[in-house]
């Protein structure tokens, strides 16, 4: 086998970077550990730069296990950016609340590596093991706040349910392997499109795969771990869980369902549509009653997962473009929301919705950032959320799933209610008398937030360039 190892350049570099970070950690004094985050970020930027050497390279390595194409490249750059952002907005939080920063950043880098493999996997085992790597990293990160009982509780719930659901996933994979005799996406697609009647065991396996992956993307009814874990985890990790993990999982899902399982579309479309409907409705409704902002955002991102699932349910060119487009907008938006919460938490140590009272006076910028991101999450125009949802919904509607789109739109409207509850606190309520000084936001956080807001506005107002990239990426799906 002749392998061009240059094609692994990004992965190798990131792995090396992670090891360097872990190594340097041994030598850096405690107060300089945050340099590792900057190092990691810089490294990621370099890797992004390097990635561009791979533009338009299309290869199937190891008999289709590892795919090099623009789809993978798009998502690699995407997750790299997410990883870099995550490290940057973790810095202050890690300094204040967490021990062992070196390992933290190292594991973040490993998780980025895992996500890169997920986007490139062309085979079930590869996909599975990358997914596990990601999940493991997240288990660790979610339990990272050693002093916090909530963190450990979240970690425990996460790993137990995670292990359980990967057992289900594996059982499903075994059934698929058993009925089709192959695990590569290409092979699966070939067998499925041969026109034979689909086997019961395959269908059962398919369901189990959906369940296993549904767990990762917090699809209802496999979502129940999410609120607890999100609430318990250190907030930057929550953001990461809600965004990066979902992006990578959807990258995987989309490739899997858009290539391997595409011929069996009729069998799973209804199921995915049903899950999508349940996910967005439940997530949105339960979010209304939340008091903790992290938990509220957790439910909100469950709701968003339902919206994202629309793209899988209505798998088509427009649908998958819409899915990725929405992922882009969603990532920036949700990151912005979480970063605002992190910044506020760093400054005040509070994270209940009521604690945000008077933020508009105390820090107009922070209030604006949070407002913009919440409005964007609600799918209001001018912000990313509207454009991306509109695109996605149009794609889904075109596939004939009007009822689902209608439900999604109604859900967007409902979601506005609980977002407004936060905005109400920030703008309409005065800050408590004993705690109403102006807040000084560190410049780094201002920078991150501004960048995220820019992306939100950019996607919302002039998304054509991004969509061009997305269209190029999705052309590698067998649609």
């Amino acid at each position, binding site marked *: 086998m002749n392998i061009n190892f240059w094609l692994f350049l990004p992965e190798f570099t990131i792995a090396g970077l992670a090891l360097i970070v872990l190594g340097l950690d041994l030598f850096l004094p405690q107060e300089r550990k945050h340099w590792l985050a900057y190092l990691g970020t810089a490294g990621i930027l370099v890797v992004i730069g390097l990635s561009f050497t791979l533009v338009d390279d299309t290869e199937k390595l*190891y008999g289709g296990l590892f795919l090099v194409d623009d789809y993978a490249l798009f998502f690699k750059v995407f997750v790299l950016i997410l990883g870099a952002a995550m490290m940057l907005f973790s810095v202050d939080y890690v300094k204040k609340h967490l021990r062992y920063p070196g390992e933290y950043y190292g*594991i973040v880098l490993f998780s980025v590596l895992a996500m890169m493999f997920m986007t490139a996997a062309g085979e079930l085992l590869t996909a599975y093991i990358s997914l596990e*790597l990601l999940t493991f990293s997240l288990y660790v990160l979610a339990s990272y706040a050693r002093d916090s009982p909530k963190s450990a509780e979240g970690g425990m719930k996460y790993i137990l349910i995670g292990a359980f659901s990967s057992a289900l996933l594996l059982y499903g994979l075994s059934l698929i392997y058993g009925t089709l005799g192959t695990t590569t996406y290409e092979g699966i697609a070939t067998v499925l499109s041969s026109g034979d009647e689909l086997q019961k065991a395959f269908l*059962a396996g398919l369901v189990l795969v959906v369940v296993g992956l549904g767990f990762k993307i917090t699809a209802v009814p496999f979502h129940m771990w999410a609120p607890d874990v999100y609430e318990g985890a250190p907030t930057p990790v929550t953001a990461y869980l809600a965004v990066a993990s979902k992006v990578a999982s959807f990258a995987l899902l989309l490739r899997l369902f858009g290539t391997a399982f595409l011929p069996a579309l009729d069998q799973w479309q209804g199921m995915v549509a049903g899950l999508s409907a349940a996910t967005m409705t439940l997530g949105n409704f339960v979010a209304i009653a939340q008091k903790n902002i992290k938990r509220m955002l957790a439910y909100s991102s469950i709701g968003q997962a339902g919206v994202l699932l629309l793209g899988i349910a209505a798998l088509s060119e427009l649908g998958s473009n819409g899915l990725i487009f929405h992922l882009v907008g969603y990532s920036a938006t949700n990151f912005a929301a979480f970063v605002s919460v992190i910044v506020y938490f760093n400054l005040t140590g509070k994270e209940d919705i009521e604690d945000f009272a008077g933020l508009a006076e105390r820090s107009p910028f922070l209030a604006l950032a949070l407002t913009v991101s919440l409005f964007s999450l609600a799918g209001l125009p001018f912000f990313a959320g509207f454009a991306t949802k509109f695109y996605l919904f149009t794609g889904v509607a075109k596939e004939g799933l009007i009822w689902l789109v209608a439900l999604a739109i109604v859900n967007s409207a409902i979601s506005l209610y609980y977002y407004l509850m936060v905005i109400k606190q920030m703008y309409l309520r005065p800050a408590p008398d004993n705690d109403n000084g102006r807040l000084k936001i560190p410049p780094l956080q201002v920078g991150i937030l501004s960048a995220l807001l820019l992306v939100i506005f950019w996607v919302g107002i002039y998304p054509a360039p991004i969509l061009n990239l997305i269209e190029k990426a999705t052309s590698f799906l067998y649609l």
Partner: protein
Amino acid sequence: MSPVEAFFYVLGVISLVGALGVVLSRNIVHAALFLLLALLTIAGLYIVLFSEFLALVQVLIYGGAIIVVILFALMLTRTRETPVRLNNNQRPLALVAGIGAFAVLTAVILVNKWPNTVEEIEPVPFRPVAEALFTTWAVPFEVASVLLLVALIGAIVIARPGGEEE
């Protein structure tokens, strides 16, 4: 029924007994030992299925490593306040759900037409498996190694003493 087949059924029954022991035993340490039993008989089943290599791995990793870790953990977390209730209060529901799942899976297995079955199963040779593992499956292999690294670091970071409220 050939001896091999008989062996299979015997082992199967023992593994089931072991498994049931895990979930039914009233003593945690006993449960762990039942697990060991189940895992070892499953290794035996692998041999019946001509996968000696895997049987080896099973015994080494499960029998050697995992059970030990579990026993350690049990010791470290043993609480003095007895009597210990091992089952939660949704047990009847769990039973129904478990049986239901089993019924559905069995139905799937029985209804399904399994294609391409070989006439006679053959032993799985070591060498090609090893070769495949390091060539075709190099990518997952590398990922798995990173995964172990992450698990290691994670376990150390999380379990290392200190930080809890004393």
